[in-house]
């Protein structure tokens, strides 16, 4: 580690461009660590700056790395607002003491209770549902009403899904663990593994294209990838979607599994008012509409329309499970995947 010490003077000379290191600087800005990489977000931040004069400084990286970074930065962390795309990670951030509780009538009014932390440590901004996408020519929608339908023997060799490495598969199984316990969840993971059309590989979009090509007949995929494929201008994707339709499976007596992309104010926030202003802006009508239209996510704010490409396949009835459960059961879910042989 000696070279590091030698470098200390050099490092401190560099400073942190963009981030105000002390709180007596009056500059209106807010520092965001985000896992979201979408064009819509860039547009939204621009609109926020235009409306409020508050500059948005951004670091985009993966959730777990961002949490480690905040932890190591400690009280000196320049981060004001943490945005992730998983409720589980938000729950973890809270448990690790990285977030602070926020009271805001605006946020509480516009976000349904099951989509935010009861104490205000984090707030859901958009929902993404784990849905079925099937080949219209080979499957009737009545066959696909429950996640459990896919473990029946009639689906052997017909199910497409990506690797268990994928977060949304993990949170789907975590929800099952929360509702029904480990045994039922393991039985489901094992059943799906048996019925797979091929070993899991590629992205969600690849699973949809594979359904269109007849490599399998049904895929488990994230709703906003479905929405994007359904509205893509690329010729292969436009051709693929002719055969595809979407089903919203239930989880037993509960609704369709959803996870949220959400945000929480950092404990170390030096720009508290600005961070809250940005949060409120992101659940405002304009922002929620852009999330829905631009990125095909489900808005959390009641009354904001869902993107047409998704709406025409039916209504989403989300499972209202306490989302903190996703984080609490994530490790169990990963272990069950390993036991089931779902790579």
């Amino acid at each position: 580690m000696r070279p590091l010490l030698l470098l200390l003077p050099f490092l401190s000379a560099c400073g942190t461009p963009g981030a105000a290191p002390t709180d007596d600087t009056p500059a209106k800005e807010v520092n965001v660590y985000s896992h979201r990489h979408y064009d819509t977000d860039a547009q939204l931040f621009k609109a926020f700056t235009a409306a409020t004069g508050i500059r948005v400084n951004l670091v985009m990286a993966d959730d777990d790395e961002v949490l480690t970074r905040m932890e190591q930065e400690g009280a000196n962390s320049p981060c004001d607002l943490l945005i992730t795309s998983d409720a589980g990670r938000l729950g973890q951030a809270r448990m690790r003491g990285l977030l602070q509780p926020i009271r805001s009538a605006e946020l509480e009014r516009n976000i349904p209770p099951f989509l935010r932390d009861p104490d205000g440590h984090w707030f859901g901004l958009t929902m993404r549902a784990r849905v079925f996408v099937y080949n219209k020519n080979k499957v009737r929608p009545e066959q696909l009403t429950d996640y459990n339908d896919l473990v029946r023997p009639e689906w052997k060799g017909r199910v497409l899904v990506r690797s268990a490495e994928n977060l949304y598969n993990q949170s789907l199984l975590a929800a099952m663990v929360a509702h029904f316990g480990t045994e039922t969840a393991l039985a489901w993971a094992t059943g799906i593994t048996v019925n797979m059309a091929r070993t899991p590989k590629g992205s969600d979009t690849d699973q949809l294209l594979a359904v269109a090509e007849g490599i399998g007949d049904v895929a488990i995929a994230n709703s906003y990838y479905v929405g994007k494929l359904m509205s893509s201008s690329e010729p292969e994707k436009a051709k693929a979607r002719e055969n595809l339709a979407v089903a919203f499976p239930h989880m037993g007596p509960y609704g369709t599994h959803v996870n949220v992309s959400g945000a929480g104010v950092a404990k170390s926030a030096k720009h508290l008012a600005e961070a809250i202003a940005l949060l409120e802006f992101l659940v405002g009508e304009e922002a929620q509409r852009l999330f829905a239209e631009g990125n095909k996510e489900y808005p959390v704010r009641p009354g904001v329309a869902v993107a047409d490409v998704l709406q025409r396949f039916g209504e989403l009835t989300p499972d209202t499970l306490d989302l903190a459960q996703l984080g609490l059961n994530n490790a169990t879910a990963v272990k069950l995947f390993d036991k089931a042989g779902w790579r």
Partner: protein
Amino acid sequence: MVVVVTAPFHAPAPEWSHVYRDVLPMHLLETILLLGGTVLLTVVIGVLSAWLVAAYSFPLRGAMRWMLVLPLALPTYISAYTYASLFGATGTISLWVHDLSGFRPDIVGLPGLIVVMALVLFPYVYLPARAVFASGLREQLEAARMLGARGSRRFLRVAVPLARPAIVGGAVLVAMETLNDYGAVKYYGIRTLTTAVFRSWTGLSDLGSALRVAILLLLLVVLLLWWERRSRIHRQQATDAVPMVRQRLTGKRAALATIWCLLVLVSGFLLPAGKLLLDAFTIDRTDTWAIDLIALRNTLGIATGAAFLTLLIALFLVFILRHERKSWTHGLVRAATLGYAVPGAVIAVGVMTAAGTIDRQAGLSFTLIGTIGLLLYAFTVRFLAVAVQPLQGSLTRQHSNVDDAARMLGASPGRIFLRVNLPQLRPAILAAAMLVAIDVVKELPLTLILRPFNFNTLSTRVFEMARIEQLREAAAPALLIVLCVLPPLLFLDRQLARSEG
């Protein structure tokens, strides 16, 4: 590095029994298959191409000689994505083949990934093998010829064994690149030690187990390095720097040689790069070129800075190696270069932990994390090996007699290094700086995690698009990466070619 190595001994690893029993066996097995397959195939492609180019004349040979290094300009993950978009189950070419013949090619899987990786990484073997074949073996090969050995026999029985240290050196770099890859293996659905690190860390929220797996990864690398050293000992070094006389190939054999090189070049570079070019200019892009240009500027900035810093530290290390005879210092230097095989994200955690500790101990009012300085330091940790290797190689060729003479005249080791060793090292320093710069331009995870606010590089741009499954939008920054890497790469090739005569 210290943090990564020591952490497992004091960090709790609550899920270790699960990782050990249900994760490690399959992940270790697939790692070894991937590693073995990729190394074997890179050696075959690299050595065969190097031999053809060095020993024979055939049509297009001159162009092929330098063009065969081009695949190194493509980051592995970009090539892997591009290949999947062409030859995956629903790739463009696969769909077309399926329509014609009913057969559906699918490159996405273990064998496919081995081929894709080998096609990108083989220049690591090709370059050193070519250098040895071209200038180091003339006498031995002449002797073999006079004893009546045919071309293929001279190649297999004389040239390859004599070039073994060079080939193994290249193969070890290939192995390290294969081990630290995360993007490509994840997309191709392969379970490796690196994905096990991430599974433990992000899936099981168990950083302790993740670091233990990382240690296992390091052990594998130590094993590889030991193999490399062994291949150097007891081997006669090819030393006569007399350029080889090339034999002219004619007719069918000349055509075969040309076709082989073309095939390697097309599949390793022209095809994926062509696809990127096509995507970059057919996709609907609004104002993103402007963002890419800023990213380009940032990329060049950190590449230059990291090359500079890494070279300083690498020179210090080779100085120690040269003038300090204690064996433990040599061990320490070697340990400092292990970073190359470690997944970037693991190094990032190590560097952040170290910086966080310093922040707290020193009571700083701001954090080192997120400074350009720390990012550059992290690059140094990761790419030190890349700089140390050529420097050390060049230094060991300098005779120690000169050092001894200088010492007898009363010069201190520092002065000897500066006045005697350093001037002769100049070409190697330049080469090492280029190699580090190339790696930094292609690097992703460290930059992603440790960057300051509002700081994009070309590779983070590619990643942001690929992450949301918009691979075509990623083509433009990917292409810029290739363009950035080409000049230093071609410079390196020319420098080597000059030494080949």
